[in-house]
């Protein structure tokens, strides 16, 4: 009798111990980032690598990290043809500055463009461990506002094409940037 009581208590405590071990799995699809691909303006089907591109959010001092393993400034620089940038989940608009040739010794070769993305948000339930995620729908009319910095100068980005208005995952390109 006593042994059975002990056994049952043991089982109860064994189960009570696994209440809080929920961790959101990194492979779970949660809030997606905006995926941008860079294309050649003169040959619109060919991907083109950028040169030392730095992307900084409005009001932020540090850039979006593209190369986590690098140290110092090069952490924020990319010379690839595809980047992913996070959108604000508490506002319907996000602005980034795109700096081409960042850190170049010759200031005449550094070009800065500001890109504002306008969208609406939807909150979707994921799981107990992950909570909710936000998915975005780009506005049909003024999804992208693109200016040079300073405004009087010419933009280095020639054209931005919206490929997907529903931003639900990171497996596809949402915006194509031609330069």
């Amino acid at each position: 009798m006593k042994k059975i009581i002990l056994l049952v208590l043991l089982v109860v405590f064994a189960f009570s111990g696994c209440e809080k071990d929920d961790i959101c799995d990194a492979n779970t699809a949660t809030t997606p980032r905006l995926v941008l691909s860079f294309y050649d303006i003169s040959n619109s089907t060919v991907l083109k690598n950028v040169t030392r591109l730095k992307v900084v959010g409005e009001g932020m001092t540090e850039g979006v990290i593209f190369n986590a393993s690098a140290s110092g400034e090069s952490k924020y620089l990319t010379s690839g043809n595809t980047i992913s940038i996070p959108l604000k989940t508490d506002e319907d608009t996000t602005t980034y500055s795109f700096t081409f040739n960042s850190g170049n010794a010759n200031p005449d070769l550094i070009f800065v463009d500001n890109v504002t993305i306008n969208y609406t948000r939807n909150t979707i339930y994921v799981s107990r461990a992950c909570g909710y995620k936000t998915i975005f729908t780009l506005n049909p009319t003024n999804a992208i506002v693109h200016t040079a910095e300073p405004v009087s100068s010419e933009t280095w980005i020639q054209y931005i094409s919206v490929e997907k208005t529903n931003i639900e995952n990171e497996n596809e390109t949402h915006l194509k940037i031609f330069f």
Partner: protein
Amino acid sequence: MKHILKYSFSFCLLLSLFLAQAQETTSTKPNPKTTQIEEILPEPPKKVTKKLPEEKVLDSIAPKTNRYGLRVGVDLYKLTRGLYDSNYKGIELVGDYRLTKKYYLAAEIGNENKTTDDDRLNSTAKGTYIKAGFDYNAYENWLDMENIISIGMRYGASTFSQELNSYKIYNANPYWDEVPSITTGEKYNGLSASWIEVVTGVKAKVFNNVFVGFSLQLKMLITNKQPDNFENLYIPGFNRTYNGDFGVGFNYTVSYFIPIYKKKAVAEKKK
């Protein structure tokens, strides 16, 4: 690990063997006593006549009677949890009715109000549930003992509501400042769930008709009406939900037995 498990199992087996032996010795003990008495017989002949009727009385007690009736009680675990856990309020009434020597009809009815605080979600589930089924008493009682070691099954059903108090948005790339938890208070009404459970339990008679017992339940969801854009994180009666349909439960009851009629159980015992 495997070896330890193996040894502990065999040790338990050994212990259970001793238990069985202990039972045998007690049942065989009365026999030597009676033979001793017979040996003493020739010397004091007068006393023998007096002792014989006493032995007959002992024999007549052996064909014991089983009491049948209704047992009602309350789950102390749920009742007292409200005292130390501010996120929980609940009550469960339990009852069983003895159908045959071994089988009991059993039911539980309860109400719970539980706030679940996860890392990213805080929600409150409120609702009522009922469970009904049977218990099989696997314990062979001696004399007039009425203890129960049971295994049984239940079908449970619950209607409840869930309120999402606050939530966080998961962002794997926290470039922008982390958004603080968002308070909503969104309420999802008209939720329901049903499940089956396997119950193992112990009930011991502590005095007169008062029983103390506890049980462990393993549950499996059959139906689960989930809210839109949320999930049933806690179902009253079923408890916390896991990724699958699996659940567990525990109760600690004090109950009172109301005897209704008695029945002799001679034939069954001799088998």
